[in-house]
């Protein structure tokens, strides 16, 4: 510890403060629902929890990160035309071994791969990355094994609200929703 650094004085006043302190030093398990979320923006948020940079004791050489469980990675969303424009590059090492696969194609092969690569890139090239990435648990569905689910204690807030498809509304809801205009008298509905 260098001289200019003055460690904060921690007075444990209340039981909530005490539990907060335990939570800092233990490894928490966070749940994140990736339904209708942008994987690249949400990766920037998840990266903090993995590296532990949301904790006051964080240091780039101290391994104090948490576990993050991401569900519904199959239903991530991208803006307008990005599924087509975003391309993943791979080279086998042999001449002529280069390949470019667009994001929608990669997502068909493995629905967790786009999310994994987004987080992998957001964590950054540092010494903690190989230790941090195994603490990320990805599921394309919302079905999780109980061994993992029993550890989860908290949830990360979603970035954007999840929209509802027209099919998900019942017919009664569609009929009884307030209408803006009435059909003209002689109109025959096609």
């Amino acid at each position, binding site marked *: 510890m260098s001289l200019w650094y003055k460690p904060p004085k921690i007075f444990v006043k209340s039981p909530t403060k005490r539990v907060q302190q335990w939570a800092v030093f233990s490894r928490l398990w966070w749940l994140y629902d990736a339904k209708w979320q942008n994987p690249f923006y949400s990766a920037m948020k998840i990266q903090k929890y993995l590296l532990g940079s949301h904790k006051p004791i964080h240091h780039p050489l101290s391994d104090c990160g948490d576990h993050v469980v991401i569900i519904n990675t199959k239903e991530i*969303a*991208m803006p307008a035309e990005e599924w087509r424009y975003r391309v993943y590059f791979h080279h086998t090492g042999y001449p002529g071994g280069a390949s470019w696969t667009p994001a*929608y194609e990669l997502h068909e092969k493995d629905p967790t791969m786009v999310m994994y690569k987004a987080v992998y890139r957001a964590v950054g090239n540092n010494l903690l990355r190989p230790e941090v990435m195994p603490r990320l648990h990805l599921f394309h569905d919302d079905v999780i094994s109980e061994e993992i689910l029993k550890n989860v204690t908290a949830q990360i807030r979603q970035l954007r609200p999840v929209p509802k498809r027209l099919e998900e509304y019942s017919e009664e809801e569609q*009929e009884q929703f307030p209408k803006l205009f009435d059909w003209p008298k002689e109109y*025959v509905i096609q």
Partner: protein
Amino acid sequence: MALKALSRLLPIRTPGASSYFRWIHTSSAVGVKEVKVTEEGDMTIIEGSIQDSKRKPFLLKMDDPYHACPMCALEGRGIKVRHTDVLILQQFLNIKHEMLPREITGLCKRQHRRVLSLVLMAQNAGLLPVNKMKVKWEKWNRYYDEETDIRDYKLKDLHHLKHMLPGES
């Protein structure tokens, strides 16, 4: 032939009817018009009685002195419609999921263009059904940020609705 001759004689003009023969129905199409056929000996009487549509009990009551179009009236009350508001956008579509003409919806030109772009956005995002094949990359979820996509729409440009704005009087 008889139907064709009858339909020529009738002075009814329906804006929504595309084909010639849809002017007269043997049964009620969607309940808007009910056709009654009564036989009295040699005579057969066909009469169509106009009925209230199913929408009538659920209509919004907006008494605007300037008779603004429905979307403008919503806008004047500070309600901003987004492409995720599927239940509102669905009212402007027909069975083929196409936009209805302005004569029926009663929208002004600016709002018609705006609703059309909102509907396209909702269909691209997969929130509203579409009547065409989807390409490979259109399969997955997509979202839109409306402020970037709809450019020429600002509330301050609506001079004819200034009296309805909440802050001003």
